[in-house]
């Protein structure tokens, strides 16, 4: 760092205001309105320039990122490998098997994954969260399933919810021994097809 950086740079004429002050004012969303700043033509000009450069800075990064979408993404693969290794499995859920001597189970995380996949592959919805309430490890105990999902624009909500409920219940019956007491579906979003 050279010494020259410590020499104060003369501000343009801002009617007694500093750039720093204006920057903070802009950060606050120009609110509460400061009449002294808003009443100064040079301040307003500086603010609009500041705003423009800020938008351009973010825009330029995004533009560049979009312009080179195929740049290598090895880092994503490395990231995912690490993440997969540390997923918390959650509780054990019994899995049916014709041989009663065999006790199989899958993890709660895997069951949630199954529920999400069941919804995602149905069409018309994008699954959100999935909660399993009840004694999962205890075959026969009632389990309440609650899911949130986004509904494709224009789809009938009630009918889609019914279809989703049936599909989820069927998938859980096929792959687990859970006694599904209820499947609640909440649409919390609408998306365009």
């Amino acid at each position, binding site marked *: *760092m050279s010494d020259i*950086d*410590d*020499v*104060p*740079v003369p*501000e343009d004429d801002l009617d007694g205001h500093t*750039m*720093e002050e204006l*920057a*903070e004012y802009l*950060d606050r969303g120009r609110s509460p309105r400061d009449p002294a700043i808003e009443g100064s033509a040079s301040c307003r000009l500086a603010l609009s*320039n*500041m705003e*423009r*450069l*800020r938008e*351009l*800075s*973010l*825009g*330029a*990064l*995004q*533009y*560049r*990122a*979009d*312009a*080179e*979408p195929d*740049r290598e*993404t090895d*880092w*994503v693969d*490395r*990231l*995912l490998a*690490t*993440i*997969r290794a540390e*997923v*918390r499995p*959650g509780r054990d859920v019994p899995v049916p098997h014709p041989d009663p001597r065999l006790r199989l189970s899958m993890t709660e*995380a895997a069951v*949630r*994954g199954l529920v*999400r996949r069941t919804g*995602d592959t149905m069409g018309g*919805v*994008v*699954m*959100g*969260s*999935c909660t399993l309430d009840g004694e999962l490890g205890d075959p026969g105990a009632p389990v309440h399933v609650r899911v*949130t999902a*986004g509904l494709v624009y224009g789809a009938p909500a009630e009918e889609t919810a019914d279809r989703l409920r049936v599909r989820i219940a069927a998938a859980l019956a096929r792959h687990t021994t859970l006694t599904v007491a209820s499947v609640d579906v909440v649409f919390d*979003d609408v*998306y*365009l097809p």
Partner: protein
Amino acid sequence: MDHDDPLLRAEDATLVVRAAEADVRAFEVLARRHGPVMRLYAEQMLGSNVESDDVVQDSFLTGWRRLSDLNDPARFRPWMMQIVTRKALDRLRRRRHHDDVDTVQHQADVARQPERIVETRMQLDAMWTALDRLPADQRRCWLLRETAGYSYQQIADELELPVSTVRGLLARARRFLTVEMEAWR
């Protein structure tokens, strides 16, 4: 990744909710969606694309582990931006304390040459080139201020510089960028 995957069209908020419930695929979509811009940002902050991969990978890992701290899932991107900023600043601090300040070469690829602007007349391309031409210390201050939203004082603390220096660097950066972008007004 499958192109018919409904997750590709899902909002950030939906993906965050799913990722918080250990849906790795949802997080993968988030990483691929926002990773590239974070990577460029880190690259511009550090003046190196060697380290930017590590910084972004590390940042997304932190993001994954702390997803439950994110109160508003729709704010994933600015939240990640803060994490990337912090990681990049850590790198800079380490570098500073190893006395090799700014010795890493900033790679200017062909696409960033000024001739390209003339051809494309793209304002954002021009802005990119302008940012790229800023001296490293000015660019760093600028990005911290305008992209990460740090205050002058925070920038001074993070870069271990006097506030007066930060003020000067920002003023110079602003002046340079204003002049560079004058033609696109």
